[in-house]
């Protein structure tokens, strides 16, 4: 199970990095969404996957009997999902506004803040 998920996570990273290298904001955004999920699945897989074995220590013992999934990474992922979701929502609105205001989603043409050919500063007075 872990092996299959590891391969899937690798595929997620490949796809997300390919998309983020694009010049188009919408593809970059899709890449970021997949990137966030890839990270969550990395942590999830790293915490072991196991069904129906609760991480509860039996009475009278101080350690777990057998192997079980680590619950902490799942708690971390919950936090990370909330954060990445809110970021992604903000980015979607920002990209949409950028498309409205700048008329393009091509990052090469987004040169309002850093105009091309600004010229040198004054060389003397």
């Amino acid at each position, binding site marked *: 199970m872990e092996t299959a998920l590891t391969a899937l996570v690798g595929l997620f990273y490949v796809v997300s990095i390919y998309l983020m290298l694009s010049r188009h904001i919408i593809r970059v955004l899709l890449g970021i969404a997949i990137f966030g999920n890839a990270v969550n699945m990395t942590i999830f897989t790293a915490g072991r996957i196991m069904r129906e074995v609760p991480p509860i220590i039996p009475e009278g013992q101080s350690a777990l009997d057998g192997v079980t999934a680590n619950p902490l*990474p799942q708690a971390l992922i919950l936090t990370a999902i909330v954060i990445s979701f809110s970021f992604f929502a903000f980015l979607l609105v920002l990209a949409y506004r*950028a498309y409205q205001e700048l008329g393009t989603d091509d990052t090469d043409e*987004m040169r309002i803040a850093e105009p091309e050919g600004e010229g040198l500063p004054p060389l003397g007075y």
Partner: protein
Amino acid sequence: MAAVTSAPVDTSAALVQAATSLLDWVVIAPVALPILGGALLMMVRHRTHLHAAVTFAVLLATLVSTLMLLSRVVGDGALVMTMGRWLPPFGISFTADVLGASFAAAATFATSAAAVFALRDIDATGRRYGFYPFLLLMIAGVNGAFLTGDLFNLYVWFEVFVISSFGLLILGSERRQIDGAVKYAVLNLIATTVFLITIGYLYGVFGTLNMADIARKADGLRENGPLMTIATLFLLAFGMKAAAFPLNFWLPASYHTPRIVTSAMFGGLLTKVGVYALLRTFTTLFPVERAILSDVIAVVAILTMVLGALGALAQSDTRRIVGFVVISGIGTMLAGLAIGSPLALTGTVLYAVHSILIMTALYLVVGLMREAAGSFSLHDLGGLYRSHPLLAAMMLAMVLAAAGLPPLSGLWPKVVLVKAAIEGNAWWLTAAILVSSVLTTIVLGRVFALAFWRPEQDTSLRSQTRPIDAVAGYGTVFVLLVPAVWIGLWPEPFLHVAGLAAAGLSDPAAYIGSVFAAQGGS
């Protein structure tokens, strides 16, 4: 559920038994106060006339708490508070040592000055869109990052101040702001996501996220664990946050677009959080990996210093010049991390404090120059020496401070860093620090010559000017200059505190001991 009769579990051994003394709450106050203030302002967001007063009160209380915290950790060593009273490493620890407390104090001080400047710079619309709540939440996130003792918690604080900074960055929704914000948001999100990946790997290897716990377990895991991979990923993630070359391109693309007071806070605070995180991970957690990576960090530091200063030379917009000067300063701080000796770390810590104060003030002075002359462009500025002599004095102080010339604060950290670099036989670093200082002198000296000494260029810009306010204009810059001059003229107390911070980084035993004091030290 079937009723299982069992004796109630005795959890007392896993809990901190002693009640937290009232004074110990000072650890959490620099984070809790601004969050509460920000939440309060959100509730009264319609009544914009209240925002400034509430913000000043909260920031003043926060500043007092950070100074109290600093004086306590300088006297007694690191102060720890563990959330929910679970013993570390199970509860999330807030661990304030000299490094974190001094950075938090400097950051809160700079933010307070910026908040006063915002009285004039942010109009009623900006307040209605939530400038002051965002400001308070940003300083909460920055202070939280400086004071937390838990890596995942550090990630959360990163996200808190990054998302607040988005709100500040696009305040006004101008086209150039949206353009800059797209690049800032995407690249910062990628940086924090890389940080999250690293945390995942680190938890897989260590089974803990408490920094002190990681530090004491690192030696035992070095044989088999991929610690080098984790350290390299940290360098990538935090280098990007700190705007180190070649990951710095989001900074010059965005820092000149928002309101000038926002630029000032960003330039002063946000990159320093990246530097802080680098210092923390590479000295407290992974000192051996730092030594292996020191050549890489040194190359990054040299390129950041020199290319930052060269980038500033090529600009004609004063805000973009300051953006590149910020990058150049990051390189100087990384130089200390590359050398790694206690003396070098002292220089880095003091330089970071100096940079928090001076970069904030430099952006504010540029904003005042815009008010006085009607333009940010070096092509249009001129004649300010005659019309605004006080502003000229302040800009001259900025030139001296940023370039590292006496009698301002830039001198001593650079002296310490150069001394450490020579002692460490790091000649390239020595040369780069000196060359970048010369280049910074030329860059800002040219701004001074063109904007102040050159005769007025364009009288039509006079319609865009407005008189500079005594308090919200000159006053804020003056307040930031007071500690800068103090560091320059009488550096002993500051060097002492920076030395303590560096000693705490070089020998994490005290840091670890303070977290695990309840369990007998180890």
